[in-house]
């Protein structure tokens, strides 16, 4: 189930990057990211727990990962 308040957009360019996937899994304090066989996977049940710490966007510079605040849409 997608988040009510937060969505995470992972660009095609970094989607299959295994090293980045592992890094995202490590840095996210609320377990939104998982490193899977296909690269970066998102645990949608945790999306709304996002604390907007930006550690994921810093781990994937250049817009590889974007946080979308759905309540601002």
């Amino acid at each position, binding site marked *: 189930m997608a988040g009510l*308040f937060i969505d995470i957009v992972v660009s095609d360019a970094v989607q299959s990057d295994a090293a980045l996937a592992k890094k995202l899994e490590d840095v996210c304090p609320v377990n939104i990211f998982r490193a899977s066989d296909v690269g970066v996977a998102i645990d949608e049940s945790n999306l709304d727990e996002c*604390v907007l710490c930006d550690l994921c966007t810093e781990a994937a510079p250049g817009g590889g990962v974007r946080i979308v605040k759905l*309540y*601002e849409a």
Partner: protein
Amino acid sequence: MRFYEYESKELFRRHGLPLGRGRVATSGAEAHEIAAEIGGPVVLKSQVLSGGRMKAGAVQFAETPDECPALFDAIMPIEVSGQTARSVLVEEKSPVAQEYFVSVTWDGRRKLPVLLFSDMGGIDIEEVAEKHPDHVSKTHFSTLLPLSPRIAKEAIAATGVGGSTLNRLTPIVFELMQIFLSYDLTLAEINPLARLEDGRFIVLDGHVDLEAEARGQHEALLAELGIGADETRQAREPTEFEIAGRKVNQVDHRGVAGNVVEFDGNLGLVIGAGGGSLTLFDAVRNHGGKPANYCEIGGNPSVGKVCELTKLILAKPGVSKIAVMMNVVSNTRVDIVARGVVKGCIESGKDPSEVISIFRIPGAWEEEGFKILERYGVEYCDRSVSMYEAAGRAVAKLGA
């Protein structure tokens, strides 16, 4: 967590406080045996976790051991404030010359322990304080500075007690102060503390409350007193609603959304922050509102935890609206709580703008939180609206 009288007295006994001979009986035959050991008039006292025993007839006197089995059988089924006896304490009856009152408890406003002493014990201390204020002393003391018997002595002397009585009372009162601090108690009380006709002092009745959060630090004592880990010692058994509330708090380790207590009103409360729960609960009642529950949120609970708490409260029969109110928060984030309550409403099939009567949580990340509330049409306010006023708005909306 309240102790039975016999447990309080066992604690006092370990610290050398003077007690009458006696012990607990669980049968009429045992009551007879104890009275025979004492060899004189005895008092039989129901062991319940509430006051009002004398008025309920749950305290009886026997001149001979032969009277005890019948009195035991009479006392055991008596309900005192809805509680039946666990056992009966059989103690020697003492010839009393004068009764005193000693109590150590916490003064929440001063954030210090306070010693209350009166030379008019055995009766309601509030009544004494009102009618005979010169017979009650109130002395705060530090938890940091060394404790001195001088504090106890001055507190006793302030009620006009002097001479040998003062000298004999001082170590008893001082010991009670030390017991209070040593065991993380919220209350240590002796009422009455009796001066017998021969000049000796004796603890006739005692009352101890242990801070529930400190249970873990005193496991050894509790085990020695025979208090089981599963004994909550609350005034009543937890309701299904309260049990469900505990489970909500166990959803994850982040923050607190717990201490849920059920009430029979119609306004659900999601409240907390540094004593804010108590203040807000009282404020709602002062405005004529009827809370459906009490709870405490803080420490930055997860969205999921707040969501589940909201769903639990909204599912309570009779609850039509909730008020989400806290003191100014610092480590708890406004936006996280806002997400939790809004999500809880939506997952309950309710419109947040209809169900949330007021959202008054100012502080960390409030701008982000207010954006969420605006998005869902929820009425909110910042710290310029007092907690009391916010509670009033919530109550008014319920009547609208």
